[in-house]
């Protein structure tokens, strides 16, 4: 199962790199929002209750990362839906490969792309004056958690794509990416969100992913939020992967 998974992961990465225009939204939109939020709302660090941080850019970097990773998950779903539409998927399931490799290959590719996306935003942040409070260890933790989060979002994208089967349906979920983002603590401290976002964000797994990414960048190696980040991301990976595999089985039974 490992060899076909790796081969499918390589194929997914090759296809992504062959069409760089599809990579642009993953970097452009989060970069624009990162710049606009940092330049426009830095004064909010003066609000009572805003945690002590060396800069608003440090605080906003994880928001750009999770935004980019969520868009990447959506694109993984769109890619699978396009393969179903084009008939590639039907040819793939007639090949002698384990069905699980189809899901695993995509998730491996998402992990690699996720590490690249997180590295991009770390470099952009450092170039514009951000400081990584957790040092080298912090960078490693951010890369690891970023890759895990990418896998979680890709698994969600796959689960949706196997059910939806149409790229346009998956693409239509784009505004919901922002809805989920706004109902989390990705952009702002949970205590300073307005009602009902403050309550909802406590139940939104994205809050814990973002806080797990934010802590090594903005605050240092505080164990609790980092462990929470990894635990919640692991939970999302488990549930979403099960849903993706169930979706694949449903798709296979539908194809027969």
């Amino acid at each position, binding site marked *: 199962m490992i060899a076909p998974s790796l081969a499918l992961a390589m194929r997914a990465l090759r296809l992504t790199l062959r069409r760089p*225009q599809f990579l*642009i939204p993953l970097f*452009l939109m989060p970069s624009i929002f990162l710049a606009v939020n940092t*330049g426009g*709302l830095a004064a909010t660090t003066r*609000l009572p209750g805003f945690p002590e941080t060396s800069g608003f850019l440090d605080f906003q970097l994880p928001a750009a990362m999770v935004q980019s990773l969520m868009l990447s998950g959506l694109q993984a779903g769109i890619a699978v839906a396009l393969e179903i539409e084009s008939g590639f998927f039907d040819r793939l399931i007639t090949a002698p490969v384990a069905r699980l490799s189809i899901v695993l290959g995509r998730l491996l590719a998402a992990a690699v792309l996720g590490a690249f996306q997180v590295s991009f935003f770390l470099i952009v942040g450092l170039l514009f004056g951000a400081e990584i409070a957790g040092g080298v260890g912090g960078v490693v933790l951010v890369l690891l958690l970023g890759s895990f989060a990418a896998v979680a979002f890709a698994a969600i994208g796959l689960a949706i794509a196997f059910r939806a089967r149409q790229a346009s349906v998956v693409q239509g979920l784009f505004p919901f990416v922002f*809805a989920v983002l*706004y109902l989390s603590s990705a952009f702002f401290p949970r205590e300073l969100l*307005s009602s009902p976002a403050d309550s909802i964000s406590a139940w939104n797994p994205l809050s814990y992913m973002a806080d797990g990414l934010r802590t090594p960048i903005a605050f240092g190696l505080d164990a609790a939020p980092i462990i929470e980040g990894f635990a919640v991301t692991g939970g999302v990976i488990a549930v979403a992967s099960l849903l993706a595999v169930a979706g694949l089985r449903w798709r296979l039974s539908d194809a027969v």
Partner: protein
Amino acid sequence: MPSDAPVLKSADEVVRSTEARRGLDVAAVRFLVVRGLNELLRVPGAAIPGIVSPAIFLIGLVLVFGKATDIPGYGTSSFLAFVLPVALLQSAGFTGGATGVNLGRDIEGGWLDRLLLSPASRGTILAGLVLSASLRVLIPIPPLLVIAIAVGAPAPSLLGLVITFALVIMFTAVASTWASILALIFKSQQASPLMQSSILSTLLFSASYAPLELLQPWMRTIAEHNPITLVVEGLRQCYVGEITWTVTWHAFAALIVMGALFAVWALAKLKRYER
């Protein structure tokens, strides 16, 4: 020949068409406007992003950054009222950007080539595209305003409402002209992310989230030189503070100048495309 393409019927019309090519052909403009509106009737779902995305953006921003107005300098305690103009202009920008996407598709499909063979002047073609977008924006703006007022934004006065619609319509015209220029440069609807993101970026790199005084120095420099700041402030006065003549005419002047410059550029691009 497609049924919706203009048809020459006689030699007289050919002569008249030569005359028409020099000026603005009102009938042809009307035809292009109706064609643009028909597209919306054929695909009503196309109007949804113009409402849903700015509504999510508006409510999301307020939920996340709503307490920003606790910082002195906003001139209001309602962040919703402060960012409502940005959501309205975002919706207008989407509508304007869609004109470029549609033009890119018309170029790919060869429809623009056929249109350029008709007696319609380049000015007529551009006017048809821009007017069509300016009318289409009247579909997403009222529901967006109703949503905003329903969640607590102040209702504008009658004058505020007139200024709101006038500025939004003119901003759509400017955005659609800009998107048409990009469509004529890239000759493909694949340039649509560039059309939408360039309009959105220009809007956001203004005094969109905070007053000029509260922006970071680098952002303030950009916002002060960005003419869209004048438009945002012109629209914002309808919901925050009082309407003043100076802010109003600055907003309209900025749009008129941008519109004129883009129109000249778009006409030059159309001329070059024809060659």
